[in-house]
């Protein structure tokens, strides 16, 4: 706690020293030049994420047991990524599994910026009067053959001894999804 405070002080101290020293080779920009600069604060993201859409690295280079038919419609449990969670005591309890995670997501235009809200929101903005982190959602997210399966298993990995898995359902999405709006994040509570 003390160290953190001192680090802040250090930054201030160093900044102060830097500012105090003469800086060379910087020239003021002329008003005309400044006038043509338009900038927007924040970040603009475009993404294309592919997860195991051909099955996974082990299906390509791994041992023979992992060589599987991993076409887009395959539901083989050796394809795709897998996430297993155990909320019990580990030894005597099983795993809730998200299996066969694969596919491709692409989106354009997730924005990230800070924003001051002091108006709008049907009157709430004025009383809120604070900064928020605004994550702008991309309007459209394109899914290509995205699949996942919800399942239960008694062991963590398919390679564990005595492994048994029961699939509950699978989902498959291929197409565009409309996702519009802004996610606003801000601190609450009293620390």
């Amino acid at each position, binding site marked *: 706690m*003390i*160290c953190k405070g*001192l*680090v802040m*002080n*250090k930054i201030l*101290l160093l900044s102060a020293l830097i500012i105090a020293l003469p800086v060379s080779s910087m020239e003021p920009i002329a008003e005309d030049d400044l006038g043509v600069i338009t900038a927007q604060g924040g970040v603009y993201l475009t993404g294309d994420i592919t997860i195991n859409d051909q099955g996974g690295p082990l299906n390509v280079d791994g041992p023979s047991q992992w060589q599987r038919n991993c076409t887009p419609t395959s*539901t083989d449990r050796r394809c795709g990524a897998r996430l297993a969670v*155990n*909320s*019990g*005591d*580990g030894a*005597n*309890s*099983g*795993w*809730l599994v998200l299996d066969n995670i694969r596919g491709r997501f692409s989106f354009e235009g997730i924005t990230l910026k800070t924003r001051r*809200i002091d108006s709008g*929101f*049907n009157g*709430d*903005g004025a*009383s*809120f009067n604070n900064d*928020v982190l605004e994550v702008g*959602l991309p309007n459209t997210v394109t*899914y290509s053959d995205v699949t996942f*399966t919800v399942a*239960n*298993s*008694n062991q963590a990995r398919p390679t564990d001894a005595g492994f*048994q*898995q*029961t*699939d*509950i*359902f*699978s*989902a*498959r*999405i*291929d*197409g*565009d*999804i*409309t*996702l*519009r*709006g*802004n*996610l*606003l*994040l*801000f*601190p*609450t*509570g*009293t*620390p």
Partner: protein
Amino acid sequence: MLIRILTNSVLPLFFLLLCSFTNADLVAMEDADLGEVDGEGIGVVLEDFVYNAGEQVNGGTFEITGLSGRVNGGGQQNVVLGISQFYIAGQGSNNGSNVDNNPVTLGRLNYPFNIELVDGDNVGVPDKAVFEFAAPKKAIDASYFNFAMENRSEGSGQRVDRISGFNTNVLSSRTTERADMGIRFDLEIGGSRFQSLENHIESLAIDGSYTRLWGDSGHMEGELAVNLYTPSIEFFACDAAGNNCGATVDFQNVAIEAELGYGEAQPVTFEVGADGNFIFEVGSLQGRCGSLNGTGGCSDAAGRAFFNDYYQNGPKGNIYIGNVSVGGRNYGSSTISNLQIQYLEVKSHDL
């Protein structure tokens, strides 16, 4: 002056150097220490939000598979639920036809969705930090329902006779923060399409709902509150192409306030058993009595105090449907009131 300069610049520098060279081991925090944590939470508001997906929205595939079913008692076949549309939008979505330019703001700036680590002492889980994910809080921390009570003719005390009214000012969500949502799906068994079922919920508020999670004895425990308030939930069926829709079953003025779990005294657990089937459990209240009377009830003061508190203030469920309307005919109201669960165990098995 000199001393002050020294204090402000040299001393910090000195301690700064000290900090850089300090090499301390990390020590796990005790539960009791963690129980003192009460930090800031993260408020979440979804501004101008629209979600619209489905096979008939943008083309493509959006389906749930892996289920099994039978037709007229035959053999098990693959069941596919094709989701034609799933949407979350603002008021006036007109059963999913007016979605794209009809956004809703979920949460209010002063009543946001909240993710926080709360002090367990305040929520019935002493000496622990509790992870809480909550929907917007209510404007007034009270029940939405007003009850008319009646005396028990053969027992003692009172019970609920009927729901006499509603405290609409309890909710913090206004019409601009209440979403319309709906789903249309097609049922396909063994490759044949049988029907389309649609469900639309109007102006839904979930104020006061939350999930709390903490750890105990090596597993995860929790507490849930589910609150739903909506003026209309509609169900109707259409043919395989989604046309020629039949009469609508409309549940009007639906309100549900349900609580599961009571802190550490009655935790909710969700686990997968060693055989791979899941187990959902609301803790049993058995064994809380220090001594029993002849008919199995509590006779000790501490036990009676606990149960009197539980039956009076503990987790309760109230479900109310104002009217069920089908094709112009009304089938009146339905009420389940003051539902308290003393024990619940749900185990799944393969069919």
